């Protein structure tokens, strides 16, 4: 099965990368941009057929390794 894990800076945590991208977008003329936060997406393929078990497993992966939960939040989506 396929599962996606999105990892991103927690709300309230300073995100220098997102800030730099926001100002670059603004310089390029995208004046409507108010804020950008930059994160990562992991596309993971796993053996299994129970979406709930796959989701639970992916959550564990995020907590153990993919995200640093001091500064990052994450969400998990089984995609097929």
């Amino acid at each position, binding site marked *: 099965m396929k599962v996606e894990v999105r990892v991103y800076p927690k709300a309230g*945590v*300073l*995100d*220098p*990368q997102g800030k*730099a991208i926001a100002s670059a977008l603004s310089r390029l003329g995208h004046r409507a941009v108010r804020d950008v936060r930059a994160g990562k997406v992991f596309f993971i393929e796993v053996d299994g057929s129970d979406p709930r078990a796959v989701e639970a497993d992916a959550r564990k992966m995020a907590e153990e*390794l*993919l995200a*640093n939960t*001091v*500064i990052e939040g994450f969400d998990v989506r089984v995609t097929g």
Partner: protein
Amino acid sequence: MKFGIVVFPGSNCDADCYHVATDLLGCEADYIWHQETDLKGADAVILPGGFAYGDYLRAGALARFSPVMESVAAFAREGGAVLGICNGFQVLLEAGLLPGAMQINRGLRYVCADVHMRVENDGTPFTALYPKGSVVTMPVGHMEGNYTAPPEVLDALEREGRVVFRYCDRDGKVVDSANPNGAARGIAGICNAQGNVVGLMPHPDRCSEGILGNAAGIKMFESAVSALATR
């Protein structure tokens, strides 16, 4: 007195630390490959600078799963002296041996510069020979040195005297312009609650003899020798 110097794939300051321990201090030292679990009778363990595992995912994130880290954690729990320098500090954070996390520098650039730090805690095995409140100059070289932690953790670090070094100007004033990376409250180095595990971003190993133009870092290693020899 024996130093154990952990070598991850991608460590690049291990030989500098070995040189300081053996050639400059006349101590014993052994490299400990990250796949090993035997700390070889080390009295102090150093996690050196570099780019362990290429800093993939996050700096220090993969290194913490190396077999050696379980031994380092057990050694630390028993009160063993552990020093993480730069990437070694990042590994200690990811491993949970020290609290908090590193973010990319606020300027989004790698910073390579001499920085001044005020000694805030002279009670650790690695800072005993620096007078508290004195200003020490050391080089930094890093991309992710922007230390952060939840406000309550920062408050606890301050309250418990666990901020070991703070970026400052040459007169010892903690001002934002002297902060090379945006680290919260100017934090350059911290220790654990027992004080035996210390991490800092600047490199004492790169300023430990006169020929390098600065020998301020040698006292960190000498502190360990005098602290551990009298145990």
